[in-house]
């Protein structure tokens, strides 16, 4: 996704990464990976709950699709690091349009289950084309 940052910007999409980690831990992470987007913290997971991002199952986290996702990351040179975080918390993606309406919503099943950036841009393009001209 970071590789398509320019494309997201070109489409006028503002990305905000949300984490349930404590602020200090999140800050370290942001510096380590050079995130490039604002990192918001939701340690009480209120937004996670609001958007229906609940608990993953054992197989979602440790099943073959998870291992496949980790393997692909390792082949890209990103070695998984040990974490003290809650590995069962689901991630997800929410796209909100300029009128404040949710236009895309996905609950991640497990590691690596993210929509392609192209599919996000497709939604943006579709709504931009159908939105009334001002």
């Amino acid at each position, binding site marked *: 996704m970071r590789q398509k940052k320019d494309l997201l910007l070109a489409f006028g999409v503002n*990305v905000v990464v949300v984490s349930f980690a404590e602020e200090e831990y999140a800050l370290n992470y942001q510096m380590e990976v050079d995130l490039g987007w604002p990192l918001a913290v939701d340690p009480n997971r209120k937004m996670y709950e609001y958007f229906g991002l609940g608990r993953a199952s054992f197989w979602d986290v440790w099943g073959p699709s998870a291992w496949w996702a980790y393997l692909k990351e390792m082949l890209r040179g990103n070695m998984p690091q040990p974490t003290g975080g809650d590995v069962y918390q689901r991630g997800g993606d929410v796209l909100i349009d300029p009128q404040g309406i949710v236009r895309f919503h996905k609950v991640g099943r497990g590691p690596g289950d993210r929509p392609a950036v192209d599919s996000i841009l497709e939604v943006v393009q579709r709504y931009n084309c159908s939105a009334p001209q001002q």
Partner: protein
Amino acid sequence: MIPLFKYAGKSACFWQADGLELPCERAAITVRIHFNYQNQETMSLHLTRIDRRPKPFSLATTNGKILSTESYRGRWLYLVFHRHLA
């Protein structure tokens, strides 16, 4: 919280709530089961769905800024909810 009206499923999976019927794949659903004083099971449905306006929110960023619904009015906002950071 939206009261759970019924769950209907034949060949496809649908949730029906708030006077609307919604295919499961277009809804993120959390069902909470409560027991009242008569030990009667009641359920409520937290239904987050597309084409709805989410409740106003604000989140603090690591650089001390507060991001809120209003900060992004008039702009597309893509919230990427991380799993654990590693």
